[in-house]
């Protein structure tokens, strides 16, 4: 005797069974029992006890959110300020720079920094999830970058005393930190396979 398949039983449960399956199940005790067992399995799956995570992940989520907020503030606040100040410095004091090597070096490290910013955007850290450790490391690096941006911004008003070599040093530090930050995101992306 041909009985219902699991496909038939699942279709019957969903109210979509074929005419044959409905008719057969109505007259077959074995298939009715199988259908009842299916209902019971699903009911028991729904009744499985709720488990709770062993570790509280909220602190990690909160810290990542706070780090992102700091980064956004740093990028749009201090970075913008620093860039504007640096640009103004370039326009106004460029003729007084005595050493053309410093000026060229400054332009080079700033270009390097801009490239790294673009690279970082490709990994889109704001839209990706990082592990707690990566998030913490990224937060530290972002804070350090924000500090340097602050120093660059402060050099704006006193740029007459600021030597290009000092600016180069700061921008170079910024580039180093940016490279580390990109590395954190590259490593994480490679690990996750994204």
């Amino acid at each position, binding site marked *: 005797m041909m009985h219902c*398949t699991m496909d038939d039983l699942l279709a019957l449960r969903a109210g979509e069974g074929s005419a044959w399956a409905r008719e057969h199940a109505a007259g077959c005790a074995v298939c009715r*029992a*199988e259908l009842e*067992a299916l209902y019971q*399995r699903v009911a028991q*799956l729904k009744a499985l006890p709720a*488990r709770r995570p062993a570790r509280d992940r909220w602190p990690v989520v909160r810290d990542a959110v706070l780090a992102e907020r700091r980064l956004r503030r740093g990028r749009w606040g201090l970075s913008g300020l620093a860039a504007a100040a640096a640009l103004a410095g370039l326009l106004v004091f460029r003729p007084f720079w005595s050493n053309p090597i410093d000026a060229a070096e400054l332009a080079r490290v700033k270009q390097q920094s801009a490239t790294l910013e673009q690279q970082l955007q490709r990994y889109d850290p704001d839209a990706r999830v990082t592990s707690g450790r990566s998030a913490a490391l990224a937060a530290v690096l972002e804070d350090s970058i924000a500090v340097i941006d602050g120093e660059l911004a402060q050099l704006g008003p006193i740029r007459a005393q600021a030597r290009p070599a000092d600016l180069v040093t700061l921008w170079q530090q910024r580039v180093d930190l940016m490279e580390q930050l990109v590395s954190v995101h590259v490593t994480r992306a490679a690990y996750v396979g994204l």
Partner: protein
Amino acid sequence: MTISLAVPDILVARAKSGDLEALEALYRAFETPVYNLALRVLRRPEDAEDVLQETFLEVVRNIKQYRGEGHLWGWIRQIATSKALMRIRHDKVRETDELHEESAVGAGVSGVAAAGAMGGAAGMSPGAVPARIDLERAFEQLSETSRAVVWLHDVEGYTHEEIAEQMGKTVSFSKSQLARAHVRLRRMLDEGVSR
């Protein structure tokens, strides 16, 4: 698993404005259902915790995009499901587990009642469903894909169309996975989950 998932609108509004206390309140409200969904699909607690974290990072980042259409849990669940399924897709190691299951089940989808009529190894009647712990263990022995389909369809109430869309597969894939999974569950329960 009965958990109240209702949250006041004012809490959602505060969360949308970036209020950390409100965001934490949302996390606390949905922590358990998100974790359980991920745990049932992925089985490993550490994976489920990672999905919980990833889900809420996305919730916090995108809460402003939630327009209040439908229950908030539906929106969060969609994110959690997506994260859990993404983890399955990227976990290449576990593909072997799935292949193993495919060959074990073989043509087992058909004639399930006939097999049941002959009685299981434990000698139970076809209608008998063993203790809950056995079902839980049997469920955990399914492949990740099968667990995902069974849990999303039978427990969370997703349609085959929704599952197919989330998994990037066809509706018939979802249906056949569900049928195969139930055949295997039934067989394992009959055998006393000894495998």
